[in-house]
């Protein structure tokens, strides 16, 4: 196991290197120039050239790349062209809201979707199954911003149960933290509930037709135990995979939800940086995202061994 983890961690290095090269090239070959944004409307061509020189953007691409890689090797993600703040600081400021939103959303989604999916599989073909699958289709189909605005209108404007927008750090207390996360998490979790419920239903349904389930029933085990101990436990691998993917996507930022609820997360930081061509910030964020993807995938692989003892590394 330790060897597997070490090998996987070592494998992240070439993955990150490839990501770094691609991100750098894609950004620097795409149209747009931060120097013209900085220079503003009164700038002369000489002014723009001078700003490009100050930012090092007048250097050949391979020189810029090597400079960036050299910094990166020392753990320095660079300085934002616009705010003049370290990229690590900017990412650090946004990490807590993003992680909080991701964790609360996934917790909510798992708590609702796994029982719903299991129930739908157990009662396959019944009205319960059709209701759950209908909800799943609806969850996939309703755009997040529509649901977000509808919840804001009802829960924040009409009933005044929750605030319209904003994020309260955990340091300000657990209740304010949770109070501001309820609506965005509820909005965002709908699509994950739909996804996880469908996968859970399909996996459990498949397992329910296995011989060992029939044997368990034949032994006289009650249906609840059959469902939880034999069916759900053995159906867990694909469910965990989907949850892992979902978590990675959430860490990557959910721009629409963050915008609708004004949560200062990584998604908004990414979009702002792209719109301004703030190269160091975009590069830093994508590297962090890549690392998160790799680590979450590793965690998911390790969890497989917990749910399926036949899997060894």
């Amino acid at each position, binding site marked *: 196991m330790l060897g597997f983890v070490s090998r996987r961690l070592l494998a992240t290095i070439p993955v990150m290197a490839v990501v770094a090269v691609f991100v750098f090239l894609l950004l620097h070959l795409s149209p747009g*120039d931060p120097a*013209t944004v900085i220079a503003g*409307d009164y700038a002369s061509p000489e002014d723009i050239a001078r700003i490009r020189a100050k930012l090092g953007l007048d250097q050949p691409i391979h020189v810029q790349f090597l400079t960036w890689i050299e910094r990166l090797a020392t753990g320095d993600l660079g300085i934002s062209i616009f705010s003049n703040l370290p990229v690590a600081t900017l990412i650090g*400021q946004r990490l807590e809201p993003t992680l909080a939103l991701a964790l609360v959303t996934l917790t909510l989604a798992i708590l609702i979707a796994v029982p719903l999916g299991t129930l739908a599989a157990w009662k396959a073909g019944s009205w319960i199954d059709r209701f759950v699958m209908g909800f799943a289709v609806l969850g996939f189909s309703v755009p997040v911003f529509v649901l977000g*605005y509808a919840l804001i209108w009802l829960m924040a404007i009409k009933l005044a149960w929750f605030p319209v927008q904003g994020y309260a750090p955990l340091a300000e207390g657990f209740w304010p933290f949770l109070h501001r996360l309820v609506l965005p998490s509820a909005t965002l979790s709908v699509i994950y509930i739909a996804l996880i419920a469908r996968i859970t239903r399909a996996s459990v349904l498949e397992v329910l037709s296995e011989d060992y389930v029939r044997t368990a029933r034949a032994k006289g085990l009650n249906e609840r135990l059959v469902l939880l101990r034999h069916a759900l436990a053995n159906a867990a691998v694909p469910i965990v995979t989907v949850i892992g993917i979902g978590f990675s996507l959430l860490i990557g930022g959910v721009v629409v939800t963050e915008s609708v609820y*004004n949560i200062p997360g990584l998604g908004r930081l990414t979009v*702002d940086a792209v719109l301004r061509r703030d190269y160091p910030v975009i590069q830093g964020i994508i590297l962090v995202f890549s690392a998160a993807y790799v680590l979450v995938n590793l965690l998911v692989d390790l969890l497989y061994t917990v749910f399926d003892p036949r899997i060894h590394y």
Partner: protein
Amino acid sequence: MMRHFLLSLTICLIGTSSAWSETVLKVVPHADLKNIDPIWTTAYITRNHGYMVYDTLFALDENLEVQPQMVDSWSVSDDSLTWAFTLRDELLWHDGTPVTAADCVASIKRWGARDGMGQKLMDATAELRVVDDSTFELVLSAPYGLVLESLGKISSNVPFMMPERLAATDPFEQVPEIIGSGPFLFVAEEWVPGAKVVYVLNQAYVPRTEAPSFAAGGKVVKVDRVEWHYIPDAATAMNALMAGEIDYFELPPHDLLPIMEAAPGVLVENLDPLGQQGWLRMNHLHPPFDDVRIRQAVLWMINQADYLQAVIGNPAYYGICPAYFGCGTPLESDVAAEALMSQDLDKARALIAEAGYDGTPVVILQATDIPINNGAALVTAQILREIGMNVELQAMDWSTLTSRRAISKPVDEGGWNIFITWWIGADILNPVANIGVSGGCRNRAWFGWPCDEEIERLRDAYAREADPAEQKRLADAVQRRAFEIVTYANFGEWFNPIAYSERLKGMIKSPVQFFWNIEKQ
């Protein structure tokens, strides 16, 4: 180190002393504050930040007259070449050190290296010298009529004063820290770019005694803390205002105004008497707009009402205005505006035919992430097609457009023919401030690069002239020439009202939104 300590101590003490009944003004600004040096960038949000933390030597009042702000008194020599300025007493930087004449000289030099009017002033300046701690002199090499107008300009880049050690920063690099002498202190530790900016009352600030008027007069702060919460989604900002979570929404989109006008506890009001002016900018370097007849055809094709209806929609918030230097201003004029004011598509078609237009595609840069820009580009494309031009709309974001418009090469080498933009009225008040009327060719004119010796001669004459009547005559002449060569086509003016809680009192009418004098009840 000591300065940092004193600044931190000041902020801590203010925080402690006001903890009992802190009044917090929560604002949704028009943009995110991404950089905090108002000389390094022309971004309006950074200009507004500048007004919070810095002060100015002079300032514009609501009569568009320049009034002293940090300056106590000034004098001009008989030959009008030497201007002496003496600072007010009790001016202190946020780190507790006194403001000196040397600080102001360094600040003017840094501003003069970046700002358009500042560069003109510096071109006319032989020497800037410190006389004593509170007095400095500006010595001109030739008479210049816009000394006070330049030092008191209200919009980007505003000549904000900084300590000499910070003003010594290369103007193309950002200052390393924010130390001003203005009415608010910037709380750097609480700044989250993309989300939040915090200012606290500067208790050491001594305001002038005059009533506030535009950027001039007493900057009396009536709240303990101002928080800018950047909310990118306008509907969310509107909901937050209606739910009482924020107090002030600086730039609500026009289509949401009816909802807020009907909402209890929310007021909608236009505070900017000068508004914005829309520009259709053509590239004078390349066909077909290198031919003045085709540029004139564009003037004949425009109906400002069509544009304004498309991009603003509510006639209460827009107006027909042909004047290059804005309506409601001392230099407002309808001189030579016949073509712009009387749409005649047949005349436009005739001019195009006379110019021998060969069907070359006209490339319009269309910034789809800015609704006004997007809408005006679509209207332009439609009317150009109606008069027989072959149009290609190229969709992009604003950042890409700002890079693309700087390319002076022909269209097939990455250039362009038309882009849409707009300026606030305060930025176009006279022929020197309005860079759109510059005919300075490829090296000195704004993107589009009009090239005309006559209009440059008139602009220079305006800059040297001090007599208001003669200035007006010269401005009219500049406008006449601008219409003749069509430096740009003005597609009308509009106003952006703010929305705010009825608990707020004391908003200042101005093209720039200020947060002093506002009370939260």
